[in-house]
């Protein structure tokens, strides 16, 4: 059982419940805008508010910036926003260890620390996520094969439990709780604060090499050859068929050295790129997205890319879509669902071929097919495993929802699993088959939260 935090660990904030927050009913969704639910939204300004809300009674799920695609941060009875509990608390410039509240956004971490020569150890494809959400989904980045996922870089975290206690968890203290919370989808408790290590960088730029691969075999060979690169990811044309099935553009990256910058930029190697807030101002009608428009786009994109090396700012390498705010509107009012799965390495070639064939055959493919080779991963509900992960966006709708069980069957047959942070539609059986750590996770939850205080629409749907 967890031990309560020592008084000294929590000396910098009152931990007694404050006056209860007044919730308001809000129509909420994840980033994919499917599904939507009206939730009683509580907005915590700090740890005291979290404890007061936990004490208030109903079931609850913590919510960050709502960037998980489906329903993991939705609970109609109680959804607790941590966005205003967002204080940076400490930074050690010798080790790079940052301590902050759970609602701090990754974009703020970058804005504050990159000019001082530090970068997040792991970043997902958007910087508009909170640190608490990154831990709860145990997010991975383009460097997973080299450094693991985000929770692997968390030194410790403070967790508010269902019974109102606050415990500090790390690999040494409350280790099982620590392991379960990384990737635990907010179901072990509410993360109040965390300490994690940044990595030192010499510049704010990335040296990117682009390689073309004409089919799946070439793509996989290229990934193997690129294992010494810090960052690697492939954009895959999921509508290509026949000999071209699995054709890709591989993007490999390293943090650029000062001497790799253009001469004019060397004086200020950590300069931040200019912010541009282009947005999609309206919902694009869904008929715009069809086999022909997407197929034409993909073919054009593949042909226009050159195999070359360039130095570009970190935003363009890591967050190409963040530059286009509200890009989800490209998928129309119905929203989008993303399908992200991982397949064990040995089964990847067969599994990917089957998934791509099935997707290409429906023509329901997406602009954005992303492929990446993961390294090994520990953790109870953490998504990565050694092998290939494939992420595909689809417009939400009956056609897509009919396709997903077919994709699930292919993934399950090949020993893979789907990503809870992207999921809106998978089945309980699929999760039980794919996540061998689920039994341990359920046992631990039964021990620390016997009443089932922490719950989301997803946890109920999947029996997490």
């Amino acid at each position, binding site marked *: 059982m967890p031990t309560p935090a020592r008084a000294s660990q929590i000396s*910098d*904030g*009152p931990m007694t419940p404050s006056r209860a*927050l*007044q*919730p*308001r009913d809000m129509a909420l969704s994840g980033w994919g805008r499917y599904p939507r639910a009206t939730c009683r939204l509580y*907005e915590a*300004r*700090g740890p*005291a508010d979290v404890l007061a809300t936990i004490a208030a009674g109903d079931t609850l799920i913590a919510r960050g910036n709502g960037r998980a695609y489906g329903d993991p941060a939705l609970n109609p009875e109680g959804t607790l926003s941590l966005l*205003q509990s*967002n*204080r*940076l*608390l*400490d*930074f050690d410039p010798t080790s790079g260890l940052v301590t902050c*509240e759970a609602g701090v956004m990754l974009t*703020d971490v970058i804005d*504050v620390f990159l000019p001082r020569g530090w970068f997040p150890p792991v970043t997902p494809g958007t910087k508009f996520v909170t640190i608490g959400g990154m831990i709860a989904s145990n997010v991975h980045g383009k460097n997973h094969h080299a450094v693991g996922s985000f929770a692997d870089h968390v030194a410790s975290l403070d967790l508010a439990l269902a019974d109102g206690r606050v415990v500090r968890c790390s690999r040494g203290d409350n280790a099982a709780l620590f392991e379960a919370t990384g990737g635990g989808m907010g179901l072990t408790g509410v993360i109040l604060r965390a300490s994690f290590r940044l990595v030192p960088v010499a510049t704010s730029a990335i040296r990117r090499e682009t390689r073309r691969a004409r089919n799946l075999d070439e793509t996989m060979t290229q990934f193997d050859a690129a294992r010494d690169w810090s960052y690697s990811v492939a954009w895959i044309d999921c509508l290509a068929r026949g000999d071209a099935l699995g054709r890709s553009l591989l993007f490999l990256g390293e943090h650029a050295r000062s001497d790799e910058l253009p001469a004019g930029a060397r004086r200020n190697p950590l300069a931040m790129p200019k912010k541009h807030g282009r947005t999609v101002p309206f919902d694009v009608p869904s008929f715009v997205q069809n086999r022909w428009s997407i197929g034409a786009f993909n073919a054009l994109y593949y042909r226009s890319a050159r195999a070359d090396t360039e130095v570009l700012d970190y935003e363009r390498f890591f967050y190409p879509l963040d530059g286009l705010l509200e890009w989800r509107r490209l998928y129309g009012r119905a929203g989008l669902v993303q399908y992200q799965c991982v397949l064990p390495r040995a089964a990847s070639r067969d599994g990917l071929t089957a998934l791509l064939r099935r997707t290409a055959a429906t023509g329901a493919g997406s602009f954005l097919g992303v492929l990446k080779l993961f390294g090994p991963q520990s953790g109870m509900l953490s998504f990565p495993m050694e092998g290939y992960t494939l992420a595909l966006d689809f417009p939400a709708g009956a056609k897509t929802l009919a396709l997903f069980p077919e994709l699930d069957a292919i993934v399950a047959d090949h020993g893979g699993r789907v990503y809870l942070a992207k999921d809106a539609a998978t089945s309980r059986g699929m999760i039980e088959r794919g996540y061998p750590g689920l039994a341990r996770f359920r046992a631990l939850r039964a021990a620390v939260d016997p009443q089932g205080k922490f719950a989301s629409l997803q946890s109920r749907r999947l029996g997490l």
Partner: protein
Amino acid sequence: MTSVNGTVLILGAASDIGRAIGHEYARGGLSVILAARDCRRLETDAADLRLRHAVAARAVEFDVLDSAGFGGFLDRLGALPETVICVVGLLGDQAVAQISAAAAELVMRTNYLGCSLVLGEVATRMAARGSGCIIGMSSVAGERGRAKNYIYGSAKAGLTALLSGLRNRLARRGVRVITIQPGFVETRMTQGMALPKILTAQPDEVARAVYRAQARGKNVVYVRPIWRWIMRAIRALPERIFMRTDI
């Protein structure tokens, strides 16, 4: 434009508007002193300001109901800050306050007596120094007493008059006094209320308006300009008609 620099003292810094103002001034490079009751909870806010904006920031204990302690409170700060912003406020519950003298008194002491007396003490010290800027967060509720919130409104009316008087008194003494009329703001104070979106500001919008008011040398600022016209219309209603309304 007037330069905004030195140190800012924020009274009521634990509130949503106080937090937002702290960030706005720290972003401008000012040293920040956060003051509120039970100031230990402000230590994390001070750390946040130091890390994000690389400025000096600290938290101090301040109780707006302890008027006898105001002199000592200002003495303990060391140098008198260049800017003092008071965002202390207590909405209270009108239904309770209109039948409970104790509840009404708390609203009046907090919003009028406490704020007025501490800013009065600050004003005298700034006048002696010959420089400074005082910013008071009043309320459009103070512009005409309404059944819905006249206890709070009357206290804010008093504060508005006091700020006006201070401005007049100090105009030729090198000290500026700014009255902020925020209108509705989405904060903890108003949580659970159904506020019309177009009339409702966010805390960081208020903070930007406060900073801009100081930088541009304004005297009375409505955070959302539409409120100036709404209140003009409400003030213009003849009493015979106004007394029968439900606004």
